């Protein structure tokens, strides 16, 4: 019994990383039908945001608040990945709705560019670029209605964009002069160190638990609750769900589907950024960090059934628990005197990579019986 509890704890720890990573994907893929292979790279941006925030909070002015930089970096990562995601939607993905395979290929191209961008552009200039994009996009929203409707609005927009560019360049120069580490481009992995209160172990029900894992579980929990509340309670959330169900009808009823698309994609990407913060707490951060998670995330979404968050939650914890059961060879402990051939098989799969093999194989087998996941969408379409 205790062993089972052990497994469940570890499984939840593994599954919560998967869940927070797959949550954004579930929204983008499930609600919009867009395959975003750049999701992993958006996670990477979130992880790098944590790193940059950490270095900024080491500056003498902000030193007193250093303990709380992780909390702030969650919001920053959401904004950074969200901004990049919105730009992605507005420039590329918008042209490709209805052709998911093309989207898949285009977003793969984006992911290559983002990876190389992180390698060959100094992080300070990257953050400057993000800052200017953010200001340039947000500033026009705050203009008074009179200006917005005037014929000269585009000149005002131009002015605000040039202002944003200026701010971006200045902040990039400021950051690289203050923190020389960020002023150089490097393809080496960087490390995020958790503040003192997050290091060490904690004891729950007789199990020792790293505090960072607990932090990740909390981050996951908050994101899940926030996203469920958003989708179910807020006006935009309800619009998003409505567009998912019937796009044409929403268009007819005066819901701006374009805006809904942008918001959905922005939120999905922002959640990828939050996942990036979680990932950065687990290991070192590099340009390829997202690639390790992306396929796992897709498996979670496919296993859970497209278009509902409940399935995503069940699937990620299920995969997490199974990974722990197989990868640590726990079945042997539960049933010590099993036949030799069976125990040999279990030992064969009791490594991290072989557990992955087993999990994917199990998922493929599972999909033989339930092709559209744990919680399929009900419908009578031929295509469904």
């Amino acid at each position, binding site marked *: 019994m205790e062993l089972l509890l052990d497994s469940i704890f570890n499984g939840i720890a593994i599954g919560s990383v998967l869940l927070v990573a797959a949550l954004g994907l579930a929204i983008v893929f499930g609600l919009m*039908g867009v*395959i975003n292979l750049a999701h992993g790279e958006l996670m990477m941006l979130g992880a790098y945001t944590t790193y940059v925030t950490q270095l900024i909070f080491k500056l003498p002015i902000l030193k007193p608040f250093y303990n709380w930089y992780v909390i702030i970096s969650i919001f920053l990562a959401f904004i950074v990945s969200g901004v990049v995601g919105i730009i992605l939607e507005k420039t*590329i993905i918008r*042209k*490709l709705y209805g052709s*998911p*395979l*093309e989207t*898949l*290929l*285009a977003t*793969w*191209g*984006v*992911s*290559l*560019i983002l*990876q*190389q*961008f992180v*390698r*060959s552009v100094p992080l300070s200039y990257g953050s400057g670029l993000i800052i200017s994009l953010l200001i340039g996009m947000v500033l026009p929203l705050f203009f008074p209605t009179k200006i917005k409707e005037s014929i000269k609005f585009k000149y005002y927009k131009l002015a605000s964009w040039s202002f944003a560019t200026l701010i971006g360049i200045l902040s990039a120069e400021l950051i690289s002069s203050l923190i020389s580490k960020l002023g150089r481009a490097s393809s080496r992995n960087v490390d995020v160190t958790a503040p003192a209160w997050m290091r060490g172990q904690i004891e729950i029900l007789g199990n020792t638990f790293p505090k960072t894992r607990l932090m990740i579980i909390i981050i996951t929990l908050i994101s899940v609750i926030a996203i469920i509340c958003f989708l179910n309670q807020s006006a935009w959330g309800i619009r998003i769900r409505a567009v998912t169900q019937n796009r044409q009808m929403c268009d007819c009823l005066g819901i701006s589907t374009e805006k809904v698309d942008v918001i959905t994609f922005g939120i999905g990407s922002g959640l990828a950024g939050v996942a990036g913060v979680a990932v950065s707490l687990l290991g070192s951060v590099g340009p390829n960090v997202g*690639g390790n998670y992306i*396929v796992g995330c*897709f*498996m979670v979404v*496919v296993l859970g059934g497209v278009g509902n968050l409940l399935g995503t939650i069940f699937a990620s914890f299920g995969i997490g628990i199974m990974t722990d059961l197989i990868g640590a060879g726990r079945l042997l402990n539960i049933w010590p005197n099993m036949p030799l051939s069976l125990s040999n098989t279990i030992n064969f799969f009791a*490594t991290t*990579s*072989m557990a*992955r*093999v087993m999990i*994917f*194989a199990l*998922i*493929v087998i599972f*999909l*033989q019986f339930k*092709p559209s996941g744990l919680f399929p969408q009900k419908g009578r379409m*031929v*295509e469904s």
Partner: protein
Amino acid sequence: MNTKNIKINGRLKFIFWVLLIAFVVAAPSLLPVFRLNLLGRYLSLAIVALGVDLIWGFTGLLSLGQGIFFTLGGYCVAMYLQLNSSSEFPNNIPEFFALYGVKDLPFFWAPFKSLFFTLFAAWLIPALVAAILGFLVFRNRIKGVYFSILTQASLLVFFNFFNGQQKLINGTNGLKTDVTQLFGQMVGSELIQRYFFWITVFLVITAWFFSKWLIKGRFGNILIGIRDDEPRVRFTGYNPVLFKTIIFSIAGALAGISGALYTVQSGIVSPQFMTVPFSIEMVIWVAVGGRGTLLGAILGAVFINYAKSLVSEALPASWMFIQGGLFILVVTTLPQGILGWLYSESPRNLLQRFGFIRKIKTYPSLEINKNGES
């Protein structure tokens, strides 16, 4: 098309073939050894691109797991070469087995001592694996994006498996072939490599004609039908599962041949061939060259890889930018690829816009919707 055009076309084709054959025969003496080897490798990649074009361009199945079959073919050939040049090692088995304390050859490697068996296994095994995988997936009507994701997941399964099995296949180090012997010659030697180049060219052309033959007849029509409207094909009384499985396993076989040729020319096969980016790159070649055009797949594979090696030599960091940009550009603006664009009306329109060709006063033909609907 009138008779005059056909005559000119025939003559052009004849000249094209003469030039091609002349180049292929002369290439080993014209090009430096290094470049020749690269060309041979890229030509062998053209075969896998043909397979991708068959399943994606004609049947509409975007597989991101062709690397599995590619690598399987590579391992078959590499193991044959290793087994046949390991007589001086203890137990007559390849050297790496001793490193992990393996005394006997694993049973499934035993048949690979024969050349005859290997030549068949290199494409039959990938084809079988593809058929099984494809059947399991298609039977449940998993298609579109889900198919892509599942193939990618299977790719990772195979990658992790091959990466972790030191005792069976030397794990992450892979199998080397360039220091092995074939007919008493080093495989890495210039002479053998030249023969491999010619074999590759021959097989590329054969595969091209085979694919052409395949899509020309009724079989090809059904494939295109599946791509454009699968339920309708089903309702007409055909079983799409069968056709999809067949074409997927043919693509797997082509990938196996391609992997075998690539392995002997690059000197090593390793699980690195099964990484996710490499399999997606295969799709890129077809997308850029022109999907649905077989020639486009071949040209795309060769030219993009050549461009890759040239750019990477000059500016190592910029290739990823160029590749990503090319990808986005092709998908958003040239969905039919470069060759597909050339075949369409667009180049004519472009020339007309700049005044190189006189505009036709009336419409050339009525807009008949070829698909018959919407």
